[in-house]
Each structure stands twice: as C-alpha cells, then as structure tokens.
C-alpha cells in the first residue's frame, strides 16, 4: 500500500507552489477582486506554459499526458493560492466532459486549445436556483439549435466555449438530457456578468437564442456523462478546497504567533489554540477523504461516486470552517478588506455552491453508500 502521492507528484506540487507563489501573490488576486481585470491573463498564460492546464490531457491532444493525480496536486496549489483564473471550469468541467464523451475531432479541437491556454471552457448546467437534477433543465435543443437561459455559468463571461446541458426529450427520465458544445464566440448567445460572492471567479447568465450547437456524446447520454463529470470535478475541487483550508489555517496560525495581546502571543490562549487545532482537524479529515477520492479518480474505481461525495462534503466543510475561523483568529483586522482573510472566506463560500450545495452532496453520499451496500 502507498496511500500517498509519489515523489514525482510531490515534486510537481512543489514546482506548482513555487510558480504560484511567484506569479500569483495576494496582490495578483486583488487585481481581479478589485475589478481591474476579469481574470489574470498572465497567470493563465503561465499555467499553459508550465503545462499545468493540460496535465491530465493525453499527449495526442496537446497535453502533458500525466494523470489525474498530477492534476490533484496542482488543484491543491491553485486553491492555496486562491488563483483568479478559470481553472476549475476549463480543466475540471469542460476538459473532463470532453475526455469522457468527446469525439476525436472535438478532443483535437478543444483539448488542444485548452492545454495551450487558447481556449477557456465551462459547463453551462444550472438554470437558476436548485441543485444538479435533470428536472431543472428547461433549455431545449432541436435541430442543432439551443434555446434557453443558463445561470449561473462559472466564468461564462470569459469562456470561449461551453458544454451545455439541454433537454432533448420529455419522458421525465435521465435520458431526456443531452450535451452540446457551443462556440460562444460564434453568435447566438448573449452573456451578462453577474455580481457574485467571489469576484475572483466570475459568474454569468448566458441566453441562447437559436444558437448553433454540436452534440457531445450520444443523444440521451447527457445526464450520465454529467454525473461522471461532476464526480470528477468534486474530487478536483476538493483538492482546491483543501489547499485553501491549509492556507487559511496557516494564516491564522501565523497571526496567532505574531500578534500580542495582554502581553502574550494570542496563540497562547486556549480559546485561540483550540480553535486552530479544530481547524487542523477538519482540514486533515478533508485531505484524507480527498486522497481517497484521488485514488478512485485516478484508477477509475467503482468507489468513485461514494469517494467523490465524501471528499466534496468534507472539503466543503473544512474550507468554510477554516476560512471563517481564520477571520475570527484575526479579530477586527481579519474583517478588513486590506487583510487577505476575506478572499478565502469568499472563495470557500462560493466553492461550497458551485457543483451543487452541501445538502445535495450529503443526500448523494447516502444514496451511493446504499447502492454500494445493496450491490
């Protein structure tokens, strides 16, 4: 047994951390936060050059041909750095959908563009309130034309293409849903930016009006593909959340060591010490669940659905917990715009919703555990 990343993978993590420490300091995150740019284009370009965007994309489609474990360690660093780039929508969602269901031509076109940093992709799934469910999808596809509204679409305002979930049947079953690829630069779409909790990752509303679209995967297979995509993304996002949790914990720890009140380091007060210990505990549980998710993802194991849900729940709880208590350790200063604490608080709360809420994944986990037990 070796329930850990390999030395090569750890080296890749160190490399990513070094790169991001240099290219993505808090100042760079703030530039996007303050609205100076919709995302950090230089960083995006750098990520492409480092080969990080295509790390899990096969070499024949322009990627590094490494695997999902390699992508996990990079995801962790993206979360730790709070990187203001469309990494999750492009790499975890769009690219994974293509890897699962794309035709050779589609992969050649889009995966290559992703790996090289030329195309930003996203998944257009949600239509307003609610969690992932075929029932909520009203946008229609007929004769290769999409009509409907998607909201929120992560990074929708900067995306070059989107994988769109559309209704192609009315049986009330999962088979009613099919996936399509839309070139968002080709017309037929109207994109509106939405103000959101975490301005370092944009959200948009996209209206499709007789918009040309190309099927992705077989007709009626949309929901089954989406389920796989969301499970994969749950694991990858969990690594971002773990990275964010760890960074929030470190910030709190450092402040507790540096800050003096009542003539002592505030970290010598048990109230603060124990709050940080509890943050460490939840971050550790999240990390361990995420490792299991990574194993299931990288081996395409039958355990993936259950492992992905557990990782998602645990990482969501940990990041929210660490981000909010990092502010608390910092006291008043933690609640200023000037300190970086709120960037993690925003990211933690936005990420908690992105693939469907905590309640949704809790329900999923129990379903999946039951299925496993029944099997």
């Amino acid at each position, binding site marked *: 047994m070796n329930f850990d990343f390999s030395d090569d993978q750890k080296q890749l993590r160190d490399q990513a951390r070094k790169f991001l420490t240099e290219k993505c300091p808090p100042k760079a995150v703030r530039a996007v936060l303050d609205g100076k740019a919709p995302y950090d284009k230089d960083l995006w370009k750098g990520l492409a050059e480092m080969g990080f965007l295509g790390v899990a994309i096969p070499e024949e489609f322009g990627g590094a041909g490494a695997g999902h474990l390699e992508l996990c360690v990079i995801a962790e660093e993206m979360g730790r750095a709070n990187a203001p780039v469309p990494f999750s929508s492009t790499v975890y969602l769009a690219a994974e959908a293509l890897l699962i269901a794309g035709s050779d031509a589609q992969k050649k076109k889009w995966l290559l563009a992703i790996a090289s940093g030329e195309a930003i992709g996203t998944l257009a*799934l*949600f239509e*307003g*309130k*609610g*969690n992932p*469910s075929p*029932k*909520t999808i009203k946008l229609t596809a007929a004769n290769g034309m999409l009509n409907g509204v998607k*909201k*929120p679409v992560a990074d929708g305002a900067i995306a070059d293409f989107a994988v769109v979930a559309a209704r192609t049947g009315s049986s009330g079953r999962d088979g009613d849903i099919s996936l399509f690829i839309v070139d968002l630069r080709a017309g037929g779409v109207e994109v509106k930016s*939405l*103000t*959101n*909790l*975490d301005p370092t990752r944009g*959200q948009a*509303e996209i209206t499709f009006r007789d918009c040309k679209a190309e099927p992705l995967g077989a007709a009626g297979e949309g929901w089954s593909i989406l389920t796989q995509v969301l499970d994969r993304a749950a694991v990858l996002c969990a690594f971002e959340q773990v990275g964010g949790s760890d960074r929030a914990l470190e910030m709190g720890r450092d402040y507790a*060591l*540096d*800050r*003096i*009140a*009542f*003539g*002592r*380091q505030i*970290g010598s*007060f048990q*109230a*603060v010490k124990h709050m940080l210990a509890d943050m460490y505990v939840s971050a550790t549980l999240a990390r361990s669940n995420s490792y299991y998710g990574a194993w299931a993802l990288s081996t395409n194991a039958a355990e993936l659905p259950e492992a992905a849900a557990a990782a998602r729940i645990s990482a969501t709880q940990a990041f*929210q917990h660490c981000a*909010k208590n990092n*502010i*608390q350790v910092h*006291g*008043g*200063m*933690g*609640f*200023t*715009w*000037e*300190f970086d*604490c*709120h960037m993690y*608080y*925003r990211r933690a*709360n*936005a990420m*908690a*919703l*992105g*693939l*469907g*809420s*905590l*309640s*949704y994944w809790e329900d999923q986990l129990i379903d999946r555990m039951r299925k496993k037990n029944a099997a």
Partner: protein
Amino acid sequence: MNFDDTLQEAEFRATARAWIAANAPKQYEEELRKSSLGRTQLKNANILEVAKAWQKKKADAGWACLHWPKEYGGRGSSPIERVIWQQEEGPFGQLSRMFIIGHGMCGPTMMAFAREEHKRAYLPPLASGEKVWCQLFSEPAGGSDVAGLRTRAEKDGDDWVINGQKIWTSGAHYSDYGILLTRTDPTVPKHKGLTMFFLDMKSPGVEVRPIKQASGASDFNEVYFTNVRIPDHQRLGEVGDGWNVSLTTLMNERSAIGAAVSTGFPELFEYCSSLMLDDGPAIEDRAVRAKLASWAAKASGLKYTSMRAISALSKGERPGPENSIGKLVAGSMIQDVATYALDLQGAAGVISGAEDSELAGRFQAMLLRAPGTRVEGGTDEIMRNIIAERVLGLPGDIRVDKDVPFNRILTKGRG
C-alpha cells in the same frame, strides 16, 4: 407572570403609539422592516439625513433619549418606558443605529464625568441628533486588549497634545464629537496610565479614513491624531483614571437591552415558508425542518431572555452581563443561517448582486457581513470570558502583563 402593561405603562404606550403614528416617516417603513444584517441603506434617500430628521422631530416632542434627565434633552422616563418606546417605534428604531454610540456610551460618560456647563451645552444637541458622537478607544495594536492602547496625551500648558491612531470608530466620518481614551503615563502598569477626554472631531490634526471591510462596505474608520490639542477642561475624570472611566462607558452597553439582536432566523423561516425545492416545499423537507427547529428554539430563547432582562429592569434590578449571551449566540448563528440559506439556493446562491439574486441578495449580504458580528463589541472569546468570570465566578486569565510597566510589555510575537 404576564405580558400585560400596568395602567401607567398602557397609557404611556398609547401616547407613544399615537405620536409615532402621526409623525414617523412612513414612506420608509417597509424598507426599514426589510433591512437585515449587511443590507441597511435606503434606496432613494440618505439614511443619515432621514435619521437626523426623525431624531430632531422626536427631540422636539420630548421623545428623544427618554431615560435622560429633561435638562440634558431627555424625558426622565423609567427604563421600562424606554423599552415600550422601542417596541412601539418598531422599524423606525433602525434609524437610531447611528446614534447608539453617542446616546448609549458617550452621553452617560459625559453625564458621569463632565462639568455641569459642558453637560448643559453638549448633551441636548447629542440627544436631538443635531450633533453626532463617536467613541475612540480601540487601536490597531490593542484589539481585545483595549487597555493596551498607545495613543499618547502629553500635557502642554492648559492643553493636552494628542498623537496616535484609533481604529474601528463607527461613524467617525459624520461625527461632531468623540470621547477619547489616551495614555498619559507609559511607565506604570497599563491600566493605570490612561486618561479620558472628549474632543471636537473637527479639531486640527484629526484625520478620519474609512476602513473598507471584508464585506466591501465601510461602517468603520481609522482616526489619526497629529498634535491635536484638547483643553484640560475637556478631560473626563482624573488623570490616570481613564480605565475606570471607560468601564462606565462600556457598562452602559447594557442600556441596549430590549434592542433585539439579529439572528437571521425570522428571515430564514419566512424564506423557507415559500421556497420550493426540487422535490417539494422546503418547509416540508425533514432536513430543513430539523435545522429550522433548532434555530427557532435558539431565537425564541434569546427573545425571552431579553424579556426577562426587561422585567428585571422594570423592577429596578440591574441586568447583569448575562446579556453577553445575546451577542455570543446571535453572532455565529447569523453566519450559520446565512450559509444555510445559500445552500438552499444551490449553485445560484453564489449570485450576490441585488438585481439577479434571490431576495435581492439579502442572505448573501448577511453572509459577507456576518464575520464582523463575532468580533465587533467584543469577540466571542471575550464574551465567553465575561460570562465565565462575571456570571460564574471563574478565575480570570493569567495576566503576564499585570504589574509590568506599559513600556516594558512584550509587543512582538515571533522574531
């Protein structure tokens, strides 16, 4: 045990109710009712102006600062009358927020420590809202350790010369006056070298800079003092007795009794009552109900704890620091409530702009503002210390800086 007014109380309530019905700015009533944590501005009016106008109107009719003596601009009312007034004032009471520091902390401190001529001069315009006051205690280096402040006051003739920096000053940018806690002797233990003053915020050398909060709004300020001169007759209490004076100020926080703490629960219950989830009404989902019930019991527990405090007040008893529980419970509860409200919205919960989000982003604003509630006016940890020490009689924390001259106390953690 009853919720009934006495005859006298009923009469007072009727008079108040009639006056409010005839005079309150009703055009803002609905909007004030729908305000919640993190969302407290008016759409089409400057809330400061509306508030000042309402306060002046109240003062002119004798309804301002009810429990203050008449000669200082009040009505000489009993504590219970003040609570009745708050109940009747309802959502219009939201307009008093910007006067809370002045009326609740600065006024009582002035009453206890200022010269009579100053009281007669400064208190009535404070009561009527014509002049706004702020409180200048906290400092960047201090935090929960308020007495660790460094702002220096040095005697120069009949004046004191102030240099230093304050932080977390609510309303400093629209305040006319402030009460200011300074260090006049750094060579004695920290609690012994402090002195309190009041000052004109328009004095030369005072600079106010808004603090942008994590939520993006600016409710607080930093205030810088560069050779600001304060005449000695504006000193409050003896030189070196500032810590005791400040305790009077802070003790008066309890006068806020009856003012409801914000838990977010009523907003969440209302939301869930109409919300449809994917598979039915939210209020019929057992998981939702379990969460709601536990919060409902907390929220009603806080409500009736406050009622018990009001009853004690009306019997002339001093409500104790038990009231710290309101802030302690509500602070983390509103954060949890807001988080859960967003969870119920699913992926769309991330949208926070007023135009595109659920309920105009009410819960999103609450979530972003919430971390501040667990810190402002004393952190959760300080509240637990207060309850443990003052109510339960447990020992204070070990104080390594107790008998150490202020200028020899450790100031740096690592390195």
